């Protein structure tokens, strides 16, 4: 079996963005296959609001003409991935605080713990309607991932100057104008960046890993009758 000579896929995600949840879920689905093909995988938290502001693409409400499609797209994408999307009552929220928390956990715990944290935060906001912009919301969302005392300690460490700077550094390390933001470096060292959860074909193509493009499976027996 051919195994390409390396490559790195990095995905930047923020719990305020449902498409980050989709991209994160897909990354976990694809991860071992990518590793099997010699590509290493990194999942990093970043602050979407800050990224958008810094490239001159600040948040703006969905225009009326796009609302129906946006709602359909988010719902169906979730459905296909097995994620239940319940549009939160309070939207948008500032994700700066939970992103700081997730970043501290990313840097100070095993990667599985960060992944469980991100999942709980994004599910908390986009499935359970928890306002994760507040300490109370973070505690509620991370119930079962950390004991309350430990989350409180983490939340304090998340507000240290070092961690705040770490969030800024991660957020400005790309030219991301949205989330998820994917950076793919192939085995030849060529880097390409992608916006969104719907460019996986391009990502795999660039990384040089074999993949099946979206295709329709012929009905049973059709071929033999032709």
């Amino acid at each position, binding site marked *: *079996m051919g195994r390409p000579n390396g490559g790195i896929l990095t995905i930047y995600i923020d719990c305020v963005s449902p498409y980050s949840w989709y991209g994160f879920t897909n990354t976990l689905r694809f991860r071992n296959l990518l590793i099997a093909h010699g590509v290493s995988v990194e999942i990093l938290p970043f602050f979407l609001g800050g990224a958008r502001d810094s490239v001159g693409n600040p948040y703006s409400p969905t225009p009326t003409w796009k609302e129906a499609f946006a709602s359909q797209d988010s719902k169906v994408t979730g459905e296909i991935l097995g994620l239940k999307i319940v549009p939160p009552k309070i939207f948008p929220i500032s994700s700066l605080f939970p992103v700081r928390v997730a970043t501290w956990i990313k840097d100070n715990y095993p990667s599985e713990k960060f992944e469980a944290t991100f999942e709980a935060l994004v599910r908390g906001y986009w499935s359970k309607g928890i306002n994760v912009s507040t300490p109370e919301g973070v505690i509620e969302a991370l119930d079962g991932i*950390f004991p309350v005392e430990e989350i409180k300690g983490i939340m*304090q*460490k998340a507000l240290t100057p070092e961690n705040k700077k770490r969030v800024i550094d991660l957020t400005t390390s790309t030219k991301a104008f949205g989330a998820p933001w994917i950076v793919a470096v192939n085995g030849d060292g060529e880097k390409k960046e992608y916006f969104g959860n719907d460019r996986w074909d391009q990502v795999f193509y660039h990384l040089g890993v074999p993949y099946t493009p979206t295709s329709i499976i012929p009905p049973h027996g059709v071929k033999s009758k032709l």
Partner: protein
Amino acid sequence: MGGHIDCYMDCSSFYSVIATRYILQNREALASHDVTVDFIPVFLGGINVGSGNKPPWTLPAKANYGQFDIERAKKYHGVENINPAPFFPPLTLRPQRALCYIKATYPQAVFEQAWQELMKLLWTPPWANITISEVLHTELTNLNLFSVKEVDEIVAAAESKEWKDKLLANTQKALDLGAFGAPWFWVRNTEGKEEPFFGSDRFHFMWEFLGLPWQDIKLLPKGPKTRANL
């Protein structure tokens, strides 16, 4: 700077699971100091027998103490979801031989991912008894790290003399280095000096031996702002 850490481990060992995660979490920092890491599959049962040791939980006093220590270690390392399987203790000869073969056949990243996934299967609900050949086959297939043909080869290798011998040789090597349990580390520092380290709670000694900058744990005095100052 520079150095190397050989990690002799068995996926049957709770403290090996903890140590693997800790080492991987610190691998980038280690790499920044030119310290490399290698994981070497051994059979812990063989290390116990060969060194005259026995599993800690077979001595009642250690079994009692272990309950406390394991819970504390889980909390400290943030891995409360780790629990022994209903079929504990697993006889891990088969998965460890499979890992020997995978290590010799596939890139390091694939080997290390397989190693972590097998540990997860033995230590995280709903568990899978990968000491059974058919279960090992199914679970290796589900990992998406290998094609079905490759999984066939891995599972067959785990039954073959070549890889039985390899696991024995790794285990003997650890014994020769003085191992009496797992995780067992053999560490080489910048000056080429080599020393053993045992367990998941001597990493500060290891960093010191390697000549790396590290922070000691520190008890903080009482004060209202103590925690915020961290």
